[in-house]
């Protein structure tokens, strides 16, 4: 966590800020979902509380906190109360590993009588060398939330809903893990920052000894042009991982009441949804990192942008900070587009039946992901001969 007290403090504060960022993004997402879904369904969403209904979620949060909090008689209290708290952990741990912008260098400065040296500030919670393996590992712990909630409720409905939801989650983890192998073959690294660095600059690749560069210089070297099938598979599997429609059998109202969170009300329910939206954010963040260049801006590399900013007359450190800020905005734009796609798909497609869902996961997505991997490997082999 850093060597001296300055680094440790800054890192701790940064981790807390990333966690709070994830938690605070949920009200905005819920507002977006309610307004967006309303316009899709040709009605208004919440538009009374505050301008454009933006304070609706604040009112909802106050309502949730002031609701009575009780557990059913048959519930196992330890598991019942531990499950919502545990729902936050995998989502945050995985989200903190996604790089959100260019790291910038804080120069040496004087404070409290001693000089703190130059420090490289990473705009992410922490940087993991084996990024993608860690993220997959931590996301696979999300199955425990579902199982603890289902069993802890003490009800057969909840238990059955929990078993079905966890069976769905683990089936689609296979497709998720396999769709990324193509990306790893392409970039030869697990680390997310290295993948983003490899996607800078215009579209170019090395084939049969010739370097092929695209004539149109603003088409970037993004992963989507090399792995379109991988992107579709990854994004579809991510829908299933976060229990969003069309895969939301766990919450299907007509089938199992509300699945594993039937017996939850009030703030505990809100924490489950923070976890669900957290998984959505992880999926969006990973999709931008693998296939859309992360925080990169098409048409200009970070080094060129740094030169442009320096030519506007900023100092070195301030230029680095401004560069980082612009790239952060670029990341957020792509991130928001993917979140909107999640919301749009939810209100457009009907829900799958459970056996259709499992068939899709095992018999369609897994073979397609395997085929994608094999074709990518053969293509790389042939092209670098």
């Amino acid at each position, binding site marked *: 966590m850093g060597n001296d007290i300055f680094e440790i403090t800054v890192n701790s504060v940064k*981790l807390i800020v990333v966690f709070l960022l994830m938690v605070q993004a949920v009200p905005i997402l819920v507002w977006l979902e309610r307004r967006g879904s309303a316009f899709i369904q040709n009605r208004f969403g919440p538009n009374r509380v505050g301008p454009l209904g933006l304070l609706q979620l604040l009112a909802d949060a106050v309502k949730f906190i002031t609701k009575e909090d009780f557990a059913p*008689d048959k519930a196992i209290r330890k598991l019942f*109360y531990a499950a919502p708290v545990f729902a936050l952990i995998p989502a945050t741990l995985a989200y903190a590993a996604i790089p959100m912008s260019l790291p910038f260098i804080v120069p040496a400065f004087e404070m409290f009588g001693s000089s703190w040296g130059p420090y490289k500030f990473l705009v992410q919670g922490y940087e993991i060398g084996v990024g993608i393996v860690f993220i997959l590992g931590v996301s696979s712990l999300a199955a425990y939330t579902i199982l603890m909630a289902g069993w802890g409720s003490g009800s057969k409905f909840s238990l059955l809903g929990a078993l079905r939801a966890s069976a769905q989650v683990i089936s689609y983890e*296979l497709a998720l*893990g396999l769709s990324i192998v193509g990306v790893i073959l392409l970039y*030869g690294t697990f680390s997310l920052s290295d993948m983003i660095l490899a996607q800078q600059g215009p579209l170019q690749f090395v084939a049969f000894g010739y370097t092929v560069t695209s004539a149109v210089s603003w088409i970037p070297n993004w992963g989507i042009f090399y792995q379109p099938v991988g992107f579709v598979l990854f994004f579809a599997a991510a829908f299933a991982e976060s229990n969003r429609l069309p895969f939301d059998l766990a919450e299907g109202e007509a089938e199992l009441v509300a699945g594993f969170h039937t017996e939850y009300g009030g703030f505990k329910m809100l924490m489950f949804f923070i976890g669900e939206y957290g998984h959505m954010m992880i999926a969006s963040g990973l999709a931008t990192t693998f296939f859309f260049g992360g925080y990169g801006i098409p048409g200009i590399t970070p080094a060129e942008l740094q030169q442009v900013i320096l030519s506007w007359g900023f100092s070195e450190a301030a230029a680095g900070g401004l560069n980082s800020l612009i790239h952060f905005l670029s990341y957020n734009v792509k991130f928001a587009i993917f979140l909107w796609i999640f919301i749009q798909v939810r209100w457009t497609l009907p829900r799958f039946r459970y056996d259709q869902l499992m068939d899709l996961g095992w018999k369609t997505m897994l073979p397609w992901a*395997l085929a994608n991997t094999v074709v990518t490997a053969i293509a790389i*082999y042939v092209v670098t001969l």
Partner: protein
Amino acid sequence: MPLGGIIFLTIFIAIFGTFLIFLARAIGGQRKDNSAVKRDIYECGIPSQDKKESRISVKFYLTAILFILFDIEIIFMYPWALSFRDFIANGAGTPVLISMGIFVAIFVYGLWWEVKSRALEWD
């Protein structure tokens, strides 16, 4: 790898979540009638029936076991994917491709057999 950061974040979230639940319990009121019906589990509005005999299907066990197996196979593809380009650069691309091809063929055969023997039907 920033293990200290990860452990700090986990403990922080656990404490924060517990604090939030205590806050909800403290602030939330309580209705006057704390009847047994309210605290019973939800079963579509009818009084809950305790069925003695309830056999949950064995499909869940099969799904989980097959998931473990295919997950291990996918995990083995990760180091291969990482070092594939290096192998090609060192001239050993062909044997590595063929050996992974055999592994994938075994994987595909397992998947095909499992689909043909209808092990995951009606899940």
